[in-house]
């Protein structure tokens, strides 16, 4: 995995590594992908289970009554009243070095 591939992955993953980090991740991820590459020669024919099959129950629990809306809102990094404040939504895409 070369630096442009890492920069693309970082962009998809919403990360902004420095040039030095991109180069280090390229070396490390190449090593890791090489290691897991041994799976290609694994002779396994079992069917791929659907993740849903593993659920023990529908995800339909009622909200946790132990804490209030205000308590949840208190964790917002920036707020105005009960609104969550974020900067402009449009523009300013970040690209990895």
């Amino acid at each position, binding site marked *: 995995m070369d630096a442009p591939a890492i920069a693309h992955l970082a962009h998809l993953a*919403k990360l902004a590594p420095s040039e030095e980090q991109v180069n280090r991740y390229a070396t490390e991820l190449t090593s890791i992908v090489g290691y897991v590459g041994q799976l290609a020669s694994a002779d396994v024919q079992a069917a791929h289970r659907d993740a849903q099959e593993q659920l023990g129950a529908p995800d339909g629990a009622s909200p946790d009554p132990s804490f209030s809306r205000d308590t949840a809102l208190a964790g*917002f990094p920036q707020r105005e009243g009960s609104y969550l404040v974020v900067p402009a939504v449009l523009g300013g895409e970040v690209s990895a070095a």
Partner: protein
Amino acid sequence: MSTLPRTLAQVAGYFAQGGTSVQLTEAFLARITRLESLNAMVTVTRELALEQAAASDVRRVGGTSLGVFDGVPYTLKDVFCVPGVPTTASSRYLSSWTPPYESTVARKLREAGAVLLGMTNTDEFTMGASTETAWPGVTHNPWDTSKVPGGSSGGSAAAVAAGLGVFSIGTDTAGSIRHPAAFCGVTGVRPTYGRISRYGEIAMASSLDQAGPICHTIEDAAAILTLLAGPDERDATSLKTPVPSYELTGASIAGTRVGIPKEYFGEGLSDGVRVAVNEAVEVLKAQGAEIVEVSIPEAELALPAYYVLCPAEVSSNMARYDGVRYGHRSKADTLAVLNAMSRSEGIGAEVQRRIMLGTHVLSTGSHDAYFAKSWQVRDAVVAAFERVFTQVDVLVSPTTPHTAFAIGAHAGDPVAMYLEDVLVVPVNIGEICGLSVPCGLVDGMPVGLQVMAARDQDATMLRVAHAYQQVTSWHELAPEV
């Protein structure tokens, strides 16, 4: 060396002789302060602990004790949400975050009267095998402070080994309870997936994460499992089947079929660990167990499959840390820059590696070759364990190929660190249960014996490990701190 109670039974004895929970809690808090340099704790909940201890003493005096956990000081890995207590996953990203709600694990312990001493260190978001990726820095192994405690629940294992609380609750996604338990000479149990609710437990890989006890004896582990196990409507993956009895009757293990999987004793296993584990097998044999050599070649594929499936789930689970709703937020003029900068500043290198690896293996060109293939391998490992557990009742192996390694030994080599999980991860990928108990010392460092059983046969592995602890004393050793 700690002279404080190490087990639930010893605490009960302490109370029976007139000791109070406040006295006991103060003694543990003093020890935590004295051994601060171990860096086992991320947060110490001194006021909460003393408040809970005082309430426990009132109940005991009034004859309304809540049972064996009432007044017992313990610690939680820093991934279980406790309202009002910072729960950081040892990440800079969550370093100033306080959860608004309570994890099921914390709630059950609170309702049983247990006294929370604080939160223990972990590899960041539980990703690692040494606690070296923790934002608060590495935890030192109390047996030799130049060595790692293992991980990711290294803070919990070090805390229990050093006598900073009677027990701790860790999590095990790929061995993160058993690995540090082995390195620190304590008992750690990873129950069957789904047996303990994950509600309020900060997620790494949700199809594999499972909480469990780290303590000194199987007897205590069984009691903790009995308290924590059970269905939870807030965790859709929690098992709805009746919780089996974990009661240890002391029944003989004569005739129990103990499988020795030859793949676990291959290249890379240190001589000292091999000798200690073989001696443990002899102990079981002397107790009447039938020793059977078995082969599980598929287990060797569990580690590479894990390092596809785990990052895939990590890349999804970590998407919530976007700088918007809680945790670390960078200054930025636009939302896209805020997302990327908050994540890059707040999240460490190992977590970023896994996010990108997961993004890679889930991308269009790689999905079938990596992700789908890894699920096929997981199914094959599951089937292999199902097959072998028709031949034997439990499997026994080393927990780790060697004893604790030096801090920094795997720096810059993520694959070497991943290989630390090689003997523990088949339990998770094979969807069975496993535990580690101390079985020896090599050059003064503890060795772990791993006992594994089929899915939902936790009671069987507990019975065998308990029988082992009844006739050995490795679990009674303590480091000189």
